């Protein structure tokens, strides 16, 4: 069979080029590696080599031709036994390779070489809490610890790694008593090498282990953000679904108290921006526990944002076996009719306080706890705004490009006709966080500021 030689694309953007010079004649014997022609693109002059052996049968494009489209047949090479007379003489039309279509009737390809089959995953559904269920007062700190410990008992592949997590029991004492129970094989103190141990944990997750990576605070995860985004979030996609990265990155996020600009930042919008990640930011202890357990079971990388100022707060946790809360579902924490507030993490408490203040003024506020930042529960938010017709968002991060900006855009797209006022965003002021007590409190949202925003969207 004669071999068609096509005009090659020499860069990802090249669509056509000039064939400046032929370096062979018809009838020349050709060996693979011989240079056949010179081609000029807008960027450079390049040579084309033959990849086959044979006799040059026909040169179909004249030397000096410009605007030769990529994939045009420019010459035909004869193999042994080919007849030169049967060859076409005119320039062949552009030759497009057939896209290969998946054949739906085929059995799914099963290959024993598949690296890792994604771990079996049963989606978590919201559990009912039957009436009469015992409630246990639990701090968020202990709820998180219980979640990790339960999952580690259940699954040998789960382990905890980070700075000071083992002997010191966690910088914020979240991993209290875990070293005793699980030993140093599964509760692992690292050197201060966030980039290194995050990468190591992602590598372990590629093999199917389920690391829980504690960052002492998310401020220090900045050292490791390359692995969180480039290695963890993108690998499933880049491997065409072949690889999984079941990992949890967790730790305190947001402003603590008077620790200055480098230690005070809410990363929810940073990670919320990234496809391939799930991002969770619980408010109370039941959610902290149920969502962390779900995160550990999730086959995807999950960024789990805790709040240092909430660790010691106590809430009821249902005393049921295997308490799970699904990722991706917001929760209406308080029902109301006049305005909707969306919030996550510590701001949920502030929003509930704001709602209380406002109820005394006769304004009925619905408070939505986002719980998951990515994927965002659009339905719950839109349903609420369709009812209340007004939206205020509250968050600790900066406003520009923030969670509130995203929700406001989503609501304007999805419920524009229902809005009676432009949405309002409450957030940290657009400066690094100051150390001074007065400047710090001027910077951060508080219940009164959230209440004021609601009054403004209600025009009172």
């Amino acid at each position, binding site marked *: 069979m004669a071999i068609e030689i096509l005009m090659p694309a020499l860069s990802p953007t090249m669509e056509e080029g000039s064939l400046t010079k032929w370096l062979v004649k018809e009838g020349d014997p050709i060996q693979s590696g011989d240079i056949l022609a010179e081609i000029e693109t807008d960027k450079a002059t390049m040579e084309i080599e033959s990849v086959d052996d044979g006799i040059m049968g026909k040169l179909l494009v004249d030397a000096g031709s410009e605007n030769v489209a990529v994939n045009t047949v420019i010459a035909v090479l004869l193999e042994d036994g080919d007849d030169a007379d049967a060859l076409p003489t005119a320039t062949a039309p552009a030759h497009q390779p057939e896209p290969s279509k998946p054949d739906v009737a085929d059995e799914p390809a099963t290959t024993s070489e598949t690296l890792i089959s994604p771990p079996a995953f049963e989606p978590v559904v919201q559990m009912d809490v039957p009436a009469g269920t015992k409630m246990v007062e639990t701090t968020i700190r202990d709820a998180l610890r219980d979640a990790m410990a339960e999952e580690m008992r259940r699954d040998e592949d789960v382990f905890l790694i980070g700075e000071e997590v083992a002997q010191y029991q966690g910088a914020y004492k979240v991993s209290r008593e875990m070293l005793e129970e699980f030993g140093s094989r599964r509760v692992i*103190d690292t*050197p*201060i090498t966030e980039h290194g141990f995050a990468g190591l944990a992602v590598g372990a997750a590629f093999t199917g282990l389920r690391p829980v990576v504690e960052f002492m605070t998310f401020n220090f995860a900045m050292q490791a953000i390359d692995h969180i985004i480039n290695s963890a979030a993108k690998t499933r996609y880049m491997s065409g679904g072949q690889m999984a990265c079941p990992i949890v990155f967790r730790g305190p996020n947001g402003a603590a108290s008077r620790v*200055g600009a*480098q*230690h005070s930042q809410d990363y929810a919008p940073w990670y919320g921006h990234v496809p391939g990640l799930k991002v969770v930011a619980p408010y109370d202890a039941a959610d902290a526990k149920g969502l962390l357990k779900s995160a550990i079971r999730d086959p995807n990388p999950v960024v789990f944002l805790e709040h240092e100022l909430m660790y010691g707060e106590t809430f009821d946790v249902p005393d049921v076996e295997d308490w799970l809360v699904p990722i991706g579902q917001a929760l209406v924490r308080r029902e109301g009719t006049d305005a909707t507030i969306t919030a996550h993490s510590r701001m949920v408490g502030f929003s509930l306080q704001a709602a209380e203040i406002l109820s005394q003024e006769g304004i009925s506020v619905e408070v939505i706890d986002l719980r998951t930042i990515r994927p965002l529960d659009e339905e719950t938010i839109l349903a609420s705004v369709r009812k209340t017709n007004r939206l205020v968002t509250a968050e600790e991060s900066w406003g520009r490009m923030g969670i509130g900006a995203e929700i406001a855009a989503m609501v304007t797209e999805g419920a524009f006709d229902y809005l009676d006022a432009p949405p309002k965003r409450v957030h940290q002021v657009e400066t690094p966080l100051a150390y*001074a007590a*007065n*400047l710090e409190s001027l910077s951060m949202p508080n219940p009164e500021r959230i209440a004021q925003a609601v009054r403004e969207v209600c025009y009172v």
Partner: protein
Amino acid sequence: MSGSSPKSKKISKKKKNVSNYDSTELLHYYREMLQIRRFEEKAGQLYGMGLIAGFCHLYIGQEAVVVGMQAAIEDGDQVITGYRDHGHMLTLGMEPRGVMAELTGREGGYSKGKGGSMHMFSTEKNFFGGHGIVGAQVSLGTGLAFANSYRGNDRVSLAYFGDGAANQGQVYESFNMAKLWDLPVIYVIENNHYAMGTAIVRSSSETHLHKRGASFGIPGVEVDGMDVLAVKEAGEMAVAHARAGKGPMILEMKTYRYRGHSMSDPAKYRTREEVNSVRAQSDPIEQLKQTIFEAGFADEAALKEIDKEIKAIVNDAADFAKDSPEPDPSELYTDVLA
């Protein structure tokens, strides 16, 4: 270094030969170290009173390191460190009032109250911070040296960091560039044996941190960081090396912090006896005091006098820091962009 393999040696002056020193010099070091100690004790006190908040890392025990190194550099040389930075600032001659008022978050602080304990700077004194992210100052300090090399001046920079910080990747990226370009930087590792609650043997495969430059061709020296004179001599050697265009050097200062990592550290990872024994055997201030007595440079009464003067300075700084007003609310929006 001219291709020779990096040397590592030990500088310690347990047997003190003070014939090279006069009384003015030794009393100066005494005063400087004591000022840091008293200042830090006062800061601890103010923290306990709720006047200082957030993270506050005290330098008590490590005073000989900065005081000795300061004696080895000249005006115009630069200094950068992490969050345990109060001692560095005082030794560079920054005002105790301004430092203390930053700790209380007041207008009179070096950063107008906006930085806090971990984030203070003085362009006047060539102090480049005050950084809260462990390891960051190593790359930044290498950059200070790069700028000196670029400008062709003969300034050197000191980049101080801890034994824990020595495990950060950017430290080694910096080492490589520093030697590749022979940058005039001295890496002063303050090895106080702990990174928060992690003893160095639990975090480091090679605990002799002065050897960490070996694969880059950076010479390293282990120094008794509790002996201000040993520090000064090692510092002078390293500074001469860097200033002569021979590139970086690593000084591993073996030292110890007496207090917890920060004010909120219960310090359960080591025994009280361990702390007490270091204090009793190698306290930098006590050691120098003995040397001063033995050389006959001062008597107990003269040192008491110094102590009194320092107490007055520190009390004045504390009063200033309490009385200085909070920054004006309008300061919230200043200094974000030029």
